């Protein structure tokens, strides 16, 4: 049970991280941060 909760929590974290990166991406682009190498 704890293992399942941990797995779901990790997937939830990845989902949040991946999605909210879009907001950060827009900010980064509008601030013209150096994103490309």
């Amino acid at each position, binding site marked *: 049970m704890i293992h399942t*909760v*941990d*797995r*779901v*929590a*990790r*997937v*939830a*974290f*990845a*989902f*949040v*991280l*991946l*999605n*909210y*990166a*879009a*907001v*950060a*991406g*827009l900010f*980064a*682009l509008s601030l013209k941060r150096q*994103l*490309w*190498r």
Partner: protein
Amino acid sequence: MMAAIFWASASVVLYVYFGYPIVLMVWSRLRPRPVHAHPDEPPVSVVIAVRDEAEALERKIANLRSLDYPTEHLQIVVVSDGHHPGTAAVLRRNVSVVDAIYVRRGGKAQALNAGVEAARHDIIVFADVRQRFDRRALHGLVAPLADPTVGGVSGELMLDVETGEGSADIGEGMGGYWRYEKWLRRQESAIGSTMGATGAIYALRRSLWVPLPVDTILDDVLAPMRAVLAASRVVFSSEALAFDPVAPSGVELRRKIRTLAGNYQILRLEPRLLNPFRNPVWIQYMSHKVGRLLVPYALMALLIVSGLLAATSPFYALAFAGQVLFYGLAAYGAWLSRRDRLLAEDAGHEPAVNALIKGTTTS
């Protein structure tokens, strides 16, 4: 009004993550467009842009030289973006097998432009320095190009978590996301074209290459989508494999921010993508790429509006509670990731983070 915002936001999230895959599944069954691939070994030019990555470059050159592909049909072009003594030393050691180009530091896009200019062959394979190619990867990339309707081919990036080798703190979530993403690309390929390629491994006909604007963030989306706009197909090949480790969560976040910033930028660089009369894969592009840009705002609106409506009906209260639970779980997941990372550091297993930041995993 609030209820309308709730349902509109919920529809965006549900369509992007569940509705669109169902549409693709049905579409690919009803109207598949097979690729007439043919095994062949045409001459190819592999173009790699590097900066200060001497060790990885040495490994990459050895990897490319060990592929199951005739070396007389393989040109390796390495473009050094700026002067880096380590990179230059590796290129000098491999002068007999690599065409080295040195350009003033100006970013990856400018380096790729120089690399394509130096490429001698009609098929250009783009690769990043970090990921290892499978021995048969080039065969997998070039076979679909025997079909004249195909202008580009994306290879498949295998993360270490998929092969059971990974140990990154965010591996489980990233592995699941990446499997889902690749499934979408396979279905999109089956009905026409994928929405871009994997930067670590993709091929493009030289005739479809248009020099990239120097500030391009995602060459692996812009170049293939320009091929699609030119009425060519860009397909996904599971026969062309490259391998990569999942990076720690902080590094993956930075990569993802870069990727998504690139997806915004592409809308400015190629506004034709938003035009249903110019973009032959408009439905897929809007559903996959633009939809992903909208989802975080829809998620935020959903949380706020359901919170405001919670007192008015048990349904909204339940929806709000479900989201609070979900974000609570995500916070717990973040804590688990941090704990794993600290444990790995204590055990001396911290990957070379700085090396991992460079390059693209999941455009």
